[in-house]
């Protein structure tokens, strides 16, 4: 993990962040170890491994899948994830007929509790500008080639609802258990920019 400040090519805002941080610490508004707690949370506990468990359970347990698609927030409550940004979670299911992909064009809304912090590309202008206008082309750049007959649904998270894609279960995974299945689920498959 790269969280060492003695690296080269740090941008000017890194120094500005340090200036603000030191002033906030002096004023008693921030503690010096708060940053370590943030790093530990999002490296160890809050990340796409949580969403992967949800997906694996949905593949194995039809009743859970039903509940997940009907009310994502209630269905994931039993996992007790931290991390926030899931006051209302809507889970959308990929099928051979429909492929779903998630974006936030206005900022970078993302379901932290199940997917962790968003990758850089999700927050950058190229993805945010293009995926609502030319999703098929963007998906092809991710290596996702869909038949022309597959409809594409793009979910622009413009309020506090958060979206997660339930990817299709890969063929040849019959007989695998929940943990083995979860290990097959990638972050991008739950955003909709990868197939499994």
């Amino acid at each position, binding site marked *: 993990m790269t969280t060492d400040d003695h690296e080269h090519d740090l941008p000017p805002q890194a120094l500005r962040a340090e200036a603000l941080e030191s002033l906030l610490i002096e004023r008693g508004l*921030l503690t010096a170890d708060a940053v370590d707690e943030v790093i530990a949370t999002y490296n160890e506990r809050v990340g796409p491994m949580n969403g992967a468990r949800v997906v694996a359970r949905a593949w194995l347990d039809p009743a859970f899948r039903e509940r997940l698609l009907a009310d994502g927030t209630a269905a994931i409550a039993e996992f007790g994830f931290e991390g926030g940004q899931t006051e209302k979670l*809507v889970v959308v299911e990929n099928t051979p007929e429909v492929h779903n992909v998630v974006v936030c064009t206005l900022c970078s809304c993302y379901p932290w509790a199940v997917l962790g912090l968003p990758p850089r590309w999700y927050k950058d202008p190229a993805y945010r500008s293009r995926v609502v206008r030319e999703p098929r082309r963007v998906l092809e750049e991710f290596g996702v080639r869909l038949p022309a007959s597959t*409809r594409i649904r793009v979910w622009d998270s413009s309020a506090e609802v958060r979206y997660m894609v339930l990817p299709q279960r890969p063929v040849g995974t019959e007989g695998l258990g929940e943990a083995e299945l979860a290990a097959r689920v990638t972050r991008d498959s739950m955003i909709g920019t990868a197939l499994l």
Partner: protein
Amino acid sequence: MDGIHDLGGKQGFGRVAPEADEPAFHARWEARVFAMLRAARAAGAVQNTDQFRHAIERIDPVAYLTNGYYGRWLGGIETLLREAGVLDEAAIQSRLIELGGDPDMPAAARPAERPNRVPPSTAPGSRREVAAPARFAVGDRVRTRSQGSAGHTRLPGYARGRIGRIVLHHGGWVFPDTNAHGLGEEPQHLYTVAFTGETLWGADAEPGVVVSLDLFEPYLEPADDD
């Protein structure tokens, strides 16, 4: 506001650049900014997420495109810390010089001369009861507002003045357009509205595409079937 943040449908940004095995934070300063948002909330400088999002929308637009996600956060946090009087520009500049920074480097922050007074939230989260019944039901055709807004709004430019269909009703939620400015939570019904690619992009649309957005009731009018 018609800011640079409203990126949906803009052209010319080139290919998406995914990164293999990307870490949660690329450098310690990014996590520092994350921790600072919590401190700014605790200090009362950031009272709600809508206010914070709007502060990011108000930063220097060139910085918005070049400073990255945590650079944008930093610009928003500094804006609100200075507006709240928690930190002032002189203190930041002198600390930056002490640390060896370039004092001529322009800041992304854009504090307002007369900032809004934003009160603390009335309750956790953003779901709220709305007294008025929902104006729309799933299946209804609606037309989105054509005009933009000088302040914060969550109706993206690309979906203005377009006809779509209600596909989900989410109940009542805090209205970002007022809440960001300290004008109250004014909860509104929230709907997911689906638009065909052709509706949004005309003849340029890719085939078989539907784009859905989560839109507050004041953004919507009934669309007559024609």
